[in-house]
């Protein structure tokens, strides 16, 4: 039995290297199983649809594309194994992954082996601060949201800002980031405090906040608390606009708050798949719907499509045998305003995406999330 396995393995190896001559192997690392399985599945589906289309059209410069899936299961240890497996399948570039801590576990391994990686949902700031030359991402960084938040609020003409977070690292980080940017824009922070996650009663918070007389409430934590605050704000008959971050982009918010209380609530978030109106995105979503009878549940799968798209774009422009280095060189220096599904894409020297991904949404009087700009 062992001999057979060994022979099969050898055969498999030959088969791979035989194909490698005319095809390019691109890895997709994502949480195909585990708590974020739906995200991972969507990522793989999107990339597969795009790869099939390219291969059906004869490949890129005569080379076909082969997709190798590495399942990180949303777990750092599994991610390290998945990265090694992809490397031994001789991938030239890897699309993914979703979770930041998962990405961090695999980053060093890809760097050691000189494999290009384009993360698709890992927004943690420090991922691109480690100086890995072959690391890129199509998703925004966490600090980007704070900049956009401050800009949008200032555009609305508000002067006195109340900021509320919940002391979790995400919410506190966004609150601090937003505060810095508000101060840069010369707006007054009249209130800055935290609520307790899981809490239900925010009357105290609201009463205290009201005495500070803000023009707008900036809420940086998650949707359950946001919904309760909206509801209790309405019960107090305090008519003040409120804006939240992407962690409040969840339709349960309206269910909890009630349509009347949620009406008018703003939040900034990367666009949902259904709000991507570019022709390429519409075409891909149609294809996706035809094959899988649904659309991706979040924008992160579309970011995976964009990561794959920029790799393909690089391959088109590289003469001779492509390498991770030559792709990275193209992405760093030559790629400019590539029309991706989620907007235009360029990369800075750290590998972070340039260009705003965040959009402003508002809840309308039917409780639907409407793209404002």
């Amino acid at each position, binding site marked *: 039995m062992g001999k057979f396995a060994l022979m099969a393995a050898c055969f498999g190896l030959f088969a791979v290297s035989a194909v490698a001559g005319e095809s390019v192997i691109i890895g997709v690392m994502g949480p195909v199983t585990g708590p974020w399985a739906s995200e991972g599945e969507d990522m793989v589906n999107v990339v597969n649809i795009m790869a099939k289309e390219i291969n059906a059209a004869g490949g890129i410069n005569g080379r076909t594309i082969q997709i190798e899936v590495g399942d990180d299961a949303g777990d750092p240890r599994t991610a390290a194994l998945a990265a090694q497996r992809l490397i031994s399948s001789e991938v030239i570039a890897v699309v993914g992954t979703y979770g930041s801590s998962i990405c961090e576990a695999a980053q060093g391994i890809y760097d050691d082996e000189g494999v290009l990686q384009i993360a698709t949902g890992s927004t943690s700031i420090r991922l691109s601060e480690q100086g890995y030359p072959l690391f890129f991402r199509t998703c925004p960084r966490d600090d980007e949201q704070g900049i956009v938040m401050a800009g949008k609020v200032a555009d609305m003409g508000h002067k006195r800002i109340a900021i509320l977070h919940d002391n979790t690292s995400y919410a506190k980080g966004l609150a601090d980031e937003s505060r810095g940017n508000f101060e840069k824009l010369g707006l007054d922070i009249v209130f800055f*405090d935290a609520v307790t996650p899981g809490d239900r*009663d925010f009357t105290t918070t609201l009463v205290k906040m009201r005495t500070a007389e803000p023009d707008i409430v900036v809420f940086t934590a998650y949707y359950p608390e946001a919904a309760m605050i909206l509801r209790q704000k309405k019960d107090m008959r305090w008519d003040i606009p409120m804006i939240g971050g992407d962690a409040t982009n969840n339709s349960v918010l309206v269910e909890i708050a009630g349509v009347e209380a949620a009406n008018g609530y703003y939040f900034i978030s990367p666009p949902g798949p259904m709000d991507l109106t570019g022709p390429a995105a519409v075409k891909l979503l149609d294809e996706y719907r035809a094959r899988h009878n649904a659309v991706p549940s979040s924008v992160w799968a579309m970011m995976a499509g964009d990561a794959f798209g920029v790799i393909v774009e690089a391959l088109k422009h590289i003469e001779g045998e492509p390498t991770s280095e030559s792709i990275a060189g193209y992405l760093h220096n030559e790629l400019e305003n590539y029309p991706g599904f989620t907007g235009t894409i360029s990369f800075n020297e750290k590998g972070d995406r340039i260009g705003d991904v965040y959009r402003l949404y508002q809840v309308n009087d039917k409780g639907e999330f409407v793209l404002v700009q």
Partner: protein
Amino acid sequence: MEVFIQQLTNGLAVGGIYALIALGYTMVYGILKLINFAHGELFALGAYLGFTLLVSVGLTGYFGTGAAILITVVMVMGLSALAGYLLERVAYRPLRKSDRLSAVVSALGASIFFQNAIMLIWDARYRAYPADLLPNVTLSFAGQDIPLIRVVVLATSVVIMLLLYFFINRTRMGMAIRASAIDQGAAKLMGIDVRRVIAIVFLIGPALGGLAGVMVGVYYGQINFNMGQLYGLKAFTAAIIGGIGNIHGAMIGGLLLGLVEAFGAAYISLAWRDAITFCVLIVILVVRPTGILRERVAEKL
């Protein structure tokens, strides 16, 4: 002044909910010297049963809103009482003769069981009571707008606590409960069916907990499967502040805890609210180790 009035009424409403849950802890402790860790989960179960009756079954469609809420409350209290009775029957009664540690472990196990059962039956996501259940009416009090629902929550808990007070102090069954709390052996010798008393305590406590669950659902509109943990901890704290085992203590402890939370958050720091609350607990325990009203005031009788 605005802050003071709002916090006063809000603290009392939240405190009333804590007090209702705390009564379940304290009554069981008074008789069995057992901390019923599963009590917080029974409270959550009540909230979910209320959700099912109001939203899934849609009682509001068959009756008017007021009647539907009333029917829901009665049914939830009954079902929670049944769950409490079964809990006692399955998890505690077989361990009556074994040492207290076994019963505590059994209570912890029951708590985990209930929490997971709620998660599996109703799903892990947040559930919402209908937002338009009660009209958004406000009352004017000392120049401030107070939401009617807040007053209703406080009034309900006060009425229920008064009823319980009379039941415990003025009826034969209440007397039997007090007697069993002081000395089970002597109570048995006096012809009191202690086993029945325990069963009754396990009916009343969870019924009050279930009622508190529906109140939280209607008041805040949002429930989730692990809400029992937070409220359970707060109510347990309230029971200890008042003196665990002491029914009046649980009522006072609950209201006091609600006020401490509300005023601590308003005048000291929002983010430090829970830290302040538990500091108060520590101070009270250092000054009066048996709680404000002492453990089991019944011994004085």
